[in-house]
């Protein structure tokens, strides 16, 4: 039988203010620290890397792990740690560039289509339908074939290939916002269309767009690495994770370690990115949030019964 004394009133207040479940799950903490480490490592690659990542020393071909070369050396004797750090810099920068290209064209286009609608919207969306009927990597191949090989070409190719997705998202969000009261109010003040679109509508779409773009960064890293791996992206001798994979896989029987290093780097990066974006999404959706059992909850917050 429950009692209704003073102590239990406190219990009631406790449960009211407690937000059960936390954003900082162990997985989230681990993943964000890994991401932070990778970012620091690649940003300060110039200071941290012990050697020039492109310095060839054939006498050190497939060097083992030694105090001088912590991760060994590759087929032409380049220091793997240095190449890993600089390779990360290439991979991450390129991924951001891809997203940059997508955003700078896709979002304004989406906003305009959503805001004005009409023939412009109709035509552009039909074009996107056709482009989106291609599987993403195939479109990448097509654009690489069009622009030629190399890192600039692959960044452009992917950036363009992803424009339809993001601009369609921006368009749909704009259409949802377009008829809301605050937009009508802004219009009634006589603000210009450009001001309404970029100062009023865009800020209300950013959270959704940002969530999408975070995922896209991880995806861009994978696809860029795939292109380099197939020899269509970043070209030797630049350090790049995808390229390291391609170069080492040929000699995988002689030195599996050299393949393991970039695989682990890419894998860790992607897994961490996913865990972070996932944890945030789960936390924001109470329906999905994990709840402790009755027994555990009561043990933690004291019993009422």
């Amino acid at each position, binding site marked *: 039988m*429950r009692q*209704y004394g003073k102590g*239990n*009133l406190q*219990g*009631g*207040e*406790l*449960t*009211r203010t*407690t*937000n*059960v*479940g936390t954003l900082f799950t162990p997985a989230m903490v681990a993943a964000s620290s890994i991401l932070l480490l990778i970012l620091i490592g690649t940003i300060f690659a110039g200071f941290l890397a012990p050697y020039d990542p492109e310095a060839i020393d054939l006498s050190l071909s497939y060097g083992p792990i030694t105090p001088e070369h912590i991760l060994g050396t590759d087929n032409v004797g380049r220091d793997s740690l240095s190449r890993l750090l600089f390779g990360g810099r290439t991979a991450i920068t390129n991924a951001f560039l891809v997203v940059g290209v997508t955003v700078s064209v896709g979002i304004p286009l989406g906003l305009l289509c959503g805001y004005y609608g009409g023939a412009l919207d109709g035509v552009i969306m039909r074009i996107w339908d056709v482009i989106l009927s291609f599987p993403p990597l195939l479109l990448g191949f097509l654009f690489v074939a069009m622009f030629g090989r190399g890192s600039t070409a692959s960044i452009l190719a992917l950036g363009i290939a992803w424009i339809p997705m993001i601009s369609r998202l921006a368009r749909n969000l704009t259409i949802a916002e377009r008829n809301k009261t605050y937009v009508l109010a802004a219009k009634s003040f006589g603000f210009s269309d450009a001001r309404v679109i970029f100062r009023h509508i865009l800020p209300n779409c950013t959270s959704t767009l940002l969530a999408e773009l975070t995922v896209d960064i991880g995806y861009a890293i994978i696809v860029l690495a795939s292109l380099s791996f197939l020899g269509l992206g970043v070209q030797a001798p630049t350090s790049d994770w995808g390229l390291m994979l391609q170069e080492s896989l040929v000699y995988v029987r002689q030195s599996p370690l050299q393949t393991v290093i970039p695989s682990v780097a890419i894998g860790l990066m992607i897994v961490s990115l996913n865990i972070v974006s996932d944890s945030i999404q789960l936390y924001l959706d*109470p329906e999905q*949030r994990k*709840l*402790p*059992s*009755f027994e555990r*909850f009561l043990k933690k917050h004291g019993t*009422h019964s």
Partner: protein
Amino acid sequence: MTVEFMTVRGIVYAVQGASLSLKQGEVLGIVGESGCGKSVMVKSILRLHREKHTRYGGQILIEGRDVLRLTQKEMGIVRGTDAGMVFQDPMISLNPIIKIGEQIAETLRIRKSMSKRLAYDESLRLLRQVGITPPEDRYLQYPFELSGGMLQRVMIAMAIALRPKILIADEATTALDVTIQAEILALLKRLRAERGMSLIVVTHDFGVVAEMCDSVCVMYAGEIVESGSVERIFASPAHPYTKALIDSVPRPGTHGDKLSSIPGMPPDLLSVHTGCAFYPRCSVAEKCCETERPELHSAGGAHIVRCERPIWKK
């Protein structure tokens, strides 16, 4: 009985110390505002809450058997045969991608091991009984092809397919138009008479209670604050909340008068309240009501009220 839920915001004390009983063939009304625990209570009869985050207390007896002590497998037999249930919104309570006839027939096939043909015939009979014509055509339609009133009839046919002893109508008419509401209520009344079932009608509308019920329970903040026969409670409501609810129902002949309403909102069930739950909104409250929890008092015979300052004392 008590029902408590675990949620992201803490434990919800949905139903506390509620107690009610039902005789065979009786029609019981459960009345209260939204969020008072009416639905939670009747859903507990069939144990429809997610077991993992729900804690039941007390007992629910159907013919002497406590459903709260049964295994899941035994529950499967209780559901449908001991008690059937009709839900609030028929639009979402029927599976959108299965033909409505099939949704009736499957129960018969699985639970009564009927053959396909027998179940089909029996489903048509049930559809006809709840007033759906022509049943052969309706049998093959999907829920999105029927109106809300029709769907509620189908829900009723589903609920009575296994000839339950109790039929629970959980706000069964709330989502419907007024004219359809009356039809559904008439249907429920007719079926109860034909089949000798007991009926539990959950509603927030005292008009429905007056129309349908023999006895009534008024719920507030997860507690039963008043119960008794319909005539008795309408004639002399004892709890101020009951009186306020009855006064807020429009009546013929009082045209032009201002309808009264109850100020404020029902309390948040996340915390346990001390004193009377209705205190903040009560028009006749006194100081002691804030701190002292009211006990159940008899107001004559089976008429029970949970109030220290019941209206009849004045």
